[in-house]
């Protein structure tokens, strides 16, 4: 396997390939290589939206080779948090990078005018995108599909107007329905005048031992499709959590004012699957097919004329744009998801910002003058659509503030106690207990997926775990995910990829590692990420926890501030940071 990094400089309009065997040998791939490249490329204190800040995409050694190893990771400095930006997407991005022959792509500088990058194997071109600047994300995909080669094996990643206008939680839409969603990577694209990247190629991978590869592939494939380790994602999908969390008092409702939602059933995974789901898709190389796509059919006249939109849904957007906004219909939630998709906004952050704004409006911290007459009310879907559009247009100071994220907006307008961000990142859809809070606080990118604290809370609800055991679980998961994200596998398949299976799969493609090697790598990646965070000013001792977390009952009952404080202290101690 050639271990190549493609460098693209938008300022000088040059590109070149470097063989970086060193990098891949030491850091394996994916997130490991990503953080190392970020340390190399991003000067300390760089403005994340300046030409100095790089955009880095990485895949790992098993992408395109084994089932469900389907993700690519983007690494950048987050304009939202000012810290580590990292976002993962499925679709066809990883496969396209693999067959284009680039395990990592670094984008530097800033283009003079709107552009897109076309990568077809070794052929890299920076092309004019002036005529598509301002166009929504789905349409951008439709246009580029006609212009670029590689049908069926390419990836088209693009921003919508939100990224162009530097909304700090703008997303990058990947191949329709998938996203590099979190932490504002869309704004980084926008700041570089970069509208899209189209990646394809026709490389293949020669295998050192084709027979061994087939054996390991078969074992992993059978585990994925014939056992129940991935069943949850296959049938109802991630939205199965809506009813489950509601029952467990863990479903954030109306900006975390409640953790159970009487209307949950109406937006539940079961209702979505029965009444709206019309097809399921998979990322290239995964037999599961967890991408659930709903048909949203709306009449636009009395004469049976309909708009039909195809909207992909998951637990997080149904929480953030559903229960957390008091939305009582599946149509309402789907319409808001579709709006985020079109504008190119991160669905989680958008929902949390809207929820804070609704409560602040209710409490008269925000006036109708500031909202330009848009009534911010729970379940007012029409107003929410208008607000999202205004966040992107930024017609006044209020909407500009919303475009900076909930942390910024609440500093400006008040309502800090219910501005639901941790580490500067709007929180995910769980109010399960202290592990979820602590997990997102300590996580390298302040994402629920850094260590799945919400799952540790749920485990604690079944069998007693004391705070110390929860902290230990968080650390274990932090480090394991560092390894798995080097591969870059889908976290839904983490049950398939046990340590032993990871070692087998690596061995089958000629990469010999031991358990100790992996454990060491996981720790080193975590430390490297914290080195970056500390360099950019992050201090775990000064993190803010919104009071609301302690006012609303969770799956594990009322959470005491002291518990969170104790767990943070234990975490620092166990990491050796005292």
């Amino acid at each position, binding site marked *: 396997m050639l271990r190549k990094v493609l460098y693209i400089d938008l300022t000088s309009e040059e590109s070149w390939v470097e063989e970086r065997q060193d990098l891949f040998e030491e850091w394996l791939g994916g997130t490991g290589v990503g953080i190392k490249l970020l340390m190399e490329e991003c000067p300390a204190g760089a403005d994340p939206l300046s030409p100095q800040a790089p955009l880095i995409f990485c895949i790992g050694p098993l992408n395109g080779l084994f089932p469900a190893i389907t993700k690519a990771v983007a690494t950048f400095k987050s304009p939202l948090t000012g810290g580590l930006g990292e976002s993962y997407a499925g679709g066809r991005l990883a496969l396209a990078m693999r067959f284009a022959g680039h395990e990592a792509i670094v984008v530097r500088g800033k283009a003079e005018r709107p552009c897109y990058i076309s990568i077809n194997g070794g052929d890299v071109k920076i092309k004019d995108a002036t005529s598509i600047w301002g166009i929504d994300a789905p349409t951008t995909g439709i246009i580029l599909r006609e212009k670029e080669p590689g049908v*069926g094996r390419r990836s088209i990643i693009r921003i919508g107007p939100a990224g162009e206008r530097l909304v700090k939680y703008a997303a990058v839409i990947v*191949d329709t329905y998938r996203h590099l969603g979190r932490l504002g990577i869309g704004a980084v694209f926008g700041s570089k005048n970069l509208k899209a990247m189209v990646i394809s190629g026709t490389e*293949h991978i*020669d295998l050192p031992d084709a027979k061994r590869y087939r054996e390991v592939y078969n074992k992993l494939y059978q585990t994925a499709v014939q056992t129940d380790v991935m069943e949850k994602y296959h049938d109802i999908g991630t939205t199965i959590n809506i009813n489950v969390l509601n029952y467990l008092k863990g479903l954030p409702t109306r900006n975390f004012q409640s953790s159970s939602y009487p209307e949950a059933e109406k937006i539940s995974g079961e209702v979505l699957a029965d009444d709206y789901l019309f*097809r399921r*898709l998979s990322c*290239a*190389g995964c*037999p*599961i097919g967890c991408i659930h796509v709903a048909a949203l059919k709306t009449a636009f006249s009395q004469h049976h004329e309909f708009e039909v939109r195809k909207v992909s849904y998951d637990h997080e957007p149904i929480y953030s744009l559903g229960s957390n906004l008091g939305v009582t219909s599946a149509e309402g939630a789907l319409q808001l998801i579709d709006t985020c998709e079109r504008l190119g906004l991160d669905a989680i952050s958008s929902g949390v910002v809207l929820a804070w704004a609704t409560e602040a409006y209710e409490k008269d911290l925000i006036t109708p003058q500031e909202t330009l007459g848009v009534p911010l009310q729970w379940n007012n879907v029409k107003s929410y659509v208008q607000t999202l559009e205004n966040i992107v247009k930024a017609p006044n100071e209020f909407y500009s503030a919303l475009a900076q994220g909930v942390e910024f907006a609440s500093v400006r307008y008040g309502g800090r106690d219910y501005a639901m961000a941790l580490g500067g990142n709007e929180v995910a859809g769980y109010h399960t207990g202290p592990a979820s809070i602590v997990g997102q606080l300590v996580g390298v990118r302040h994402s629920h997926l850094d260590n799945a604290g919400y799952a540790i809370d749920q485990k604690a609800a079944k069998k007693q775990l004391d705070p110390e055991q929860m902290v230990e679980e968080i650390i274990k998961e932090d480090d394991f995910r560092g390894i798995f994200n080097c591969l870059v596998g889908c976290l839904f398949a983490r049950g398939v990829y046990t340590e032993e299976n990871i070692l087998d799969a690596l061995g089958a493609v000629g990469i010999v590692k031991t358990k100790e090697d992996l454990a060491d790598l996981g720790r080193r990646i975590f430390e490297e990420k914290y080195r970056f965070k500390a360099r950019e000013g992050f201090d775990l001792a000064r993190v803010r926890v919104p009071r609301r977390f302690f006012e609303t009952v969770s799956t594990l009952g009322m959470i005491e501030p002291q518990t969170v404080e104790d767990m943070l202290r234990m975490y620092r101690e166990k990491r050796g940071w005292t």
Partner: protein
Amino acid sequence: MTEEVKKPKKRRRLKVAHPERCIGCLSCMFACSRINAKTASLKDSAIKIQTQGGIEGDFRVIVCRGCQDAPCSRACPTGALEQKPDGSVVFHEELCTSCGKCEQACLIGAITLNKDGKPIKCKHCGACVAFCPHGVLELEEVS
């Protein structure tokens, strides 16, 4: 001792039974290249899953239909693609001159050429069938 009468082996042919059930995972393509070309590749696969208008559209499954009077075989000027009496088309690599006429002859686009210009031809072995998680593909017997 009676002579054993061998029943003539029936030809097996791949059938795209339920294309609308395809989820676009490409497991069939990886199976084909893994088992037949011994590579991990999309382009070495004899079966192709094509998108039409991205993954929002329907998937097209493109694979050899095993024609009774095979145009690819008729188009081959050197006999490299030989149609046997049972209808199966066998590829003799040593006879192939990489002229590409077989690719042109197949209206559905089931034949593509590898980097040496030689056809990647479905053998109807069924490797892809075993790895389709949704029963899109079947192997049928041709009588």
